[in-house]
């Protein structure tokens, strides 16, 4: 296994770990952390694709786009978290998902 193939497997495993964190998250902020891990894995795969075909610069340009989208997602996600906490009073995922049934609104 060449080093690039090892890194490719590692990126897939990071995606799997991100999904595991998302499954077990009780809190909304931990769900955002899980999404960050998955986006890092996608960026790793983009860079690996660029290096493996010899076009390092092109792979890096696409990876910068992935990083920018990553940052915007976390910024808007955290703004939503602040608004949800102010309006509903809790960040527990179990209570937020059935908002109307549990009488939070």
């Amino acid at each position, binding site marked *: 296994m*060449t*080093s*690039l*193939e*090892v*890194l*490719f497997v*590692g990126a*897939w*495993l*990071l*995606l*799997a*770990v991100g*999904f*595991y*964190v998302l*499954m*077990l998250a*009780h*809190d909304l*902020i931990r769900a955002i*952390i*899980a999404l*960050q*891990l998955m986006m*890092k894995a996608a*960026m*790793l795969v983009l*860079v*690996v694709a*660029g*290096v*493996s*075909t010899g*076009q*390092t*610069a092109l*792979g*890096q*340009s*696409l*990876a*910068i786009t992935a*990083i*920018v989208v*990553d*940052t*915007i997602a*976390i910024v*808007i996600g*955290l*703004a939503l*978290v*602040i*608004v949800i*906490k*102010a309006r509903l009073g809790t*960040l*527990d995922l179990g209570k937020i998902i059935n908002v109307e049934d549990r009488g939070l609104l």
Partner: protein
Amino acid sequence: MIVVLLILMLFCAVQTIHTSHLLHAVLWLASSSVVTSILLYTVGAHEIAVIELSVGAGLTMVLLVFAITVVGESTQQIDKPHWGYLVMVMVIAIGFIVLTAPELSSQPAPDSQHFTETMWHERALDVVLQIALLFGGALTVLALLMQPVKEEDQVKEREVEEEILSQMSETIARVNATLEEELV
């Protein structure tokens, strides 16, 4: 070398869910970003390593710590590590890799391709779209955070508006009265 760094990155990623404090989870995410940056430098992507280090370990961590400070930490029970789920998800991922395994080997770059040339000339539209996305994101955050969420704030805003309107109508009435006097 790469295997050691990969195992360290996966360990940091798994520890984000197995700690009780939210701030510790953010620190584990930042350390995972640092190890990712070292990995990227080892493979050959130097500029992306620097950007990932500054954005992942700097900006993301600062934003998350700021949000946790505003929102406040709730003392909840620690999530028990379900190792069975982790093994199942990793096995599914390895299954995907085995089914769709590409042959990867690092080839040398054809010409001396500069990163700045590619990003600013060939992918200039990408950069323009990123700038537009950033502005859109900033405006969204402003729109989300500047609304009064509680009803008391909304009531206060309405009271202030009504006061301003009544003052304006009073001044208009006074001006009309003086004008009529002068005309007559």
